[in-house]
């Protein structure tokens, strides 16, 4: 039991593979908390959600343009867990997504919705911005243009 957990943490910390992985809510929290002054931009999307698919490249661009700063884009697909192999993995490959992509290892959607943010109705796209050092945790249940995304994550004021 201990080994897979350590393995998962390693994968989360250093994984650059395009393979979509399952992520437990505990590991999700841990990842954000361990980030210290890193600004995490966590985008919730789904393969079936057209506006989500449209804005995925904005997040990828944000990551590329801030590769040397403490900014980390993470994608979490809300496609149901059974669709990981059939839908999410092929999608990530064809769209050549470079940022990490996860699916929550939690079949009860209500649990992860409330866990991410109490005010989230469950609609996607949605984006969570977290910076542990500056105690920032902002949640947005909406779509973004690239400019909006940039101003919101780089210059939060």
């Amino acid at each position: 039991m201990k080994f897979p957990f350590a393995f998962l943490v390693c994968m989360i910390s250093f994984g650059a593979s395009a393979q979509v992985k399952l992520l437990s809510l505990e590991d999700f929290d841990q990842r954000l908390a361990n980030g210290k002054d890193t600004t995490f931009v966590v985008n919730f999307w789904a393969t079936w959600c057209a506006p989500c698919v449209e804005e995925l490249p904005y997040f990828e661009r944000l990551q590329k343009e801030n590769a040397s700063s403490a900014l980390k884009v993470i994608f979490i697909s809300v496609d149901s867990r059974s669709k990981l192999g059939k839908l999410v993995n092929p999608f990530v490959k064809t769209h050549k997504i470079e940022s990490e992509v996860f699916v929550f290892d939690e079949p009860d959607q209500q649990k992860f919705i409330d866990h991410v943010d109490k005010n989230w109705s469950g609609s996607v796209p949605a984006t969570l911005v977290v910076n542990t050092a500056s105690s920032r945790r902002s949640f947005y249940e909406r779509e973004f243009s690239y400019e909006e995304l940039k101003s919101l994550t780089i210059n939060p004021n």
Partner: protein
Amino acid sequence: MKKVVMSCFLLLAICMKLSAQGYTVGSVVEDFRLKNVDDKMVSLADFKSAKGFIVVFTCNTCPVAKDYESRIIALNNEYAAKGYPVIAINTNDPVASPGDSFAKMQERAKEKNFKFPYLVDSDQQLTKRFGAAHTPTVYILAKTSKGNVVEYTGAIDNDQDESNPSRSTFVKNAVNELINGKKPSVSKTKAVGCTVKWKKA
């Protein structure tokens, strides 16, 4: 004077809450009149012997709604006879989502042999009034002397994949409780869904 100001604020707060969130548990639902796939108009008042309703905001195109389609059919099969028929309403604008046109709704209802109304909300006013943000979303209503009161809002169950045998069947549980004269023990749930495809301004 103070009381008047206070009640004004309270009223304002309630109004703002209504416009922002739509109906919540305890709200009295104003009846509506929408066109069904058989071209007839349908209102809640038409269901004289109903004890309540399972109102489902759904559509033809959303993969989550599709995953739940057979469960919506099963809910009507089980509960229409017990006084809680399903009323399905398509939320989506047919220009924004061509797969949700009235003709496509008729096709789907025929193909799947819907035994319940599948209504078109052409101006999307009812979807707005209820505050349904995504499909599928359920509102369970109970008929009372005050009118049709919302007793439950949210998801059909917490297992979109139908892969977890210990899933919580929220809507079934709530309707069973209402049939047994109880208030639903879980009255508000959440799930992932597709955003309503609104008419472009």
